């Protein structure tokens, strides 16, 4: 495995191709690992996990300036998982980054496990705030960024939201305020897979024109393929340049990405693959890295 972690200034000396390959390998490992966790636990949110995997892998295995040995360091970058139900992807990313032992992943959703169905900061150092109910993580991320703005601190704040989550009113309270404050060290990533739990977002309570909405709230808007690691790295590199406005990266994603029978199927929001499905999923993911 190539090991290409960023320098203390957040920049890797590796080429973008090397960095993307590293993230790609880690994302593939995450997918295989959390599908096993979901099968063992008998429950989970595989569709959203697979949708968010490449974004989380890019953050945890390249972008985020965090010290696994000191996860509460005051100057750490903050990552807030506003779509808190996608813990398969989050926990594998955190374990892969060294925030807790990989073998702990075997306890996912088991009685008294630290790996609750939604992330809990009192169980797991590295979680910034307890999320799960939608519309919570983003306002907390805004508060973190305001604290950094007051202190003129160097840390950056990243928030990953679902797209269905943007139907919550608190998200737009937070967006409005972040735009008003000009929180230039805040980056939101929208996991824009166009499916919510029950149906397509646009058939439920449509979000488009989504970029225009963010721009109207005072944000810089960037669109990116949310499964293209090099494109994600470039978007994050660019987002970390000094700026006067908060930035949103609208990541075009596919719910269920990487497992053919789960892709773009709302039914895999929840769900557990049966043994045949699990074998097929693993075979597809292994073939991807062959």
């Amino acid at each position: 495995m190539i090991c290409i972690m960023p320098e203390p200034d957040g920049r890797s000396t590796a080429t973008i191709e090397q960095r993307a390959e590293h993230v790609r390998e880690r994302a593939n490992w995450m997918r295989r690992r959390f599908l096993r966790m979901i099968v063992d636990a008998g429950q989970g949110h595989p569709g959203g996990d697979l949708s968010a995997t490449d974004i989380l892998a890019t953050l945890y295995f390249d972008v985020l300036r965090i010290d696994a040995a000191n996860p509460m360091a005051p100057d750490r970058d903050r990552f807030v998982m506003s779509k808190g139900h996608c813990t398969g992807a989050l926990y594998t990313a955190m374990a892969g980054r060294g925030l807790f032992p990989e073998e702990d992943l075997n306890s996912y959703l088991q009685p008294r496990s630290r790996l609750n169905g939604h992330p809990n900061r009192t169980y797991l150092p590295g979680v910034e705030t307890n999320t799960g109910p939608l519309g919570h993580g983003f306002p907390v991320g805004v508060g973190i960024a305001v604290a950094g703005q007051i202190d003129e601190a160097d840390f950056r704040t990243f928030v990953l939201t679902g797209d269905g989550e943007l139907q919550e009113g608190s998200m737009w309270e937070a967006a409005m305020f972040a735009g008003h404050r000009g929180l230039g060290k805040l980056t939101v990533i929208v996991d824009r897979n166009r499916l919510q739990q029950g149906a397509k977002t646009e058939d439920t309570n449509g979000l488009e024109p989504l970029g225009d909405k963010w721009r109207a709230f005072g944000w810089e808007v960037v669109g990116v393929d949310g499964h293209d690691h090099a494109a994600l790295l470039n978007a994050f590199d660019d987002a970390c340049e000094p700026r006067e406005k908060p930035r949103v990266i609208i990541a075009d994603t596919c719910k269920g990405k990487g497992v053919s029978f789960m892709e773009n199927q709302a039914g895999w929001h929840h769900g557990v693959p049966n043994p045949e499905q699990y074998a097929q999923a693993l075979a597809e993911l292994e073939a991807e890295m062959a």
Partner: protein
Amino acid sequence: MGAVTKPDTAMFDCREAYVRTVEEMAATDERIVAVVNDSVGSSKLGKFRDRFPHRLINVGIAEQNMVGVGAGLANGGKVPFVSGASCFLTARAMEQIKADCAYSRANVKLCGISSGVAYGELGATHHSIEDVAWLRAIDGMTVIVPSDPWETEQAIRAATAHEGPVYIRLSRMPVPALERSNPHFEIGKSEILHEGGDVAIIANGTMVHRAIKAAKALASEGVGARVINMATVSPIDTAMLADAAKTGAIVTVEEGLKQGGLGGAVAEFCAENAPVPMRVLGFPGFVPTGSASWLMDEFGLNAAGIATAARELLGKRA
């Protein structure tokens, strides 16, 4: 012990003590910030804003975001005093209080202004009589209802020293400065402000001075009423409650809903540990239009009403 209200004393708005204390602490503690929902005026934070312009964060009329931002500021090392009218701060942002503050164990200080029926004539949308019942039901949430300016200052200082979420329920209703022979404030500890062994009257907030007045009237009839100021509703002072139950009768009184608040907390403890006849004084539900003082009189939340409840209960003593 054995305190009484000062005769002909001046009356105070506890918001003044709140902002004075926060300003004093902010001068030496850079972590302290204030977060408001367009409520700089009603929270009386204008001077704070003038002194510490970068530490007054006004999110506008958006209470969910206000509480979430408060939790984020705590994550960033700040000690945020999140202030707004109690009715909106608690009800509108209840899930943020539960998830972002209490469940996340965030170091957020929530200051409910104009609680109870302070906004009397504005009606039940603007009354905050359910807040204590709601917030004391949340694990890890400290709930304090100060009774006068001194106790307000102590509560603010103690909340700052306490690591974790705290709800401080303030009023705008004038109250006298209570006399204390041995002033000492501690979260989770109550105090006796009038001695008596026949009945215990447990009160907090704006009801404490009324309870003392009731106890003095009862004393003139030969009835010894112990007045307990139960400023902290959660965690409640169970040792004091066990002693109070030994009088054989407990009256609780609060500027809030009869169900689930201070009276509920006392009843829960006593029913399991020290069964005793009780009367719970408070509002029965949504109340009609009227000033705060009219509403308190109308529903017996005054010295006469408290004394009447105590007299009725004496006949049922265990």
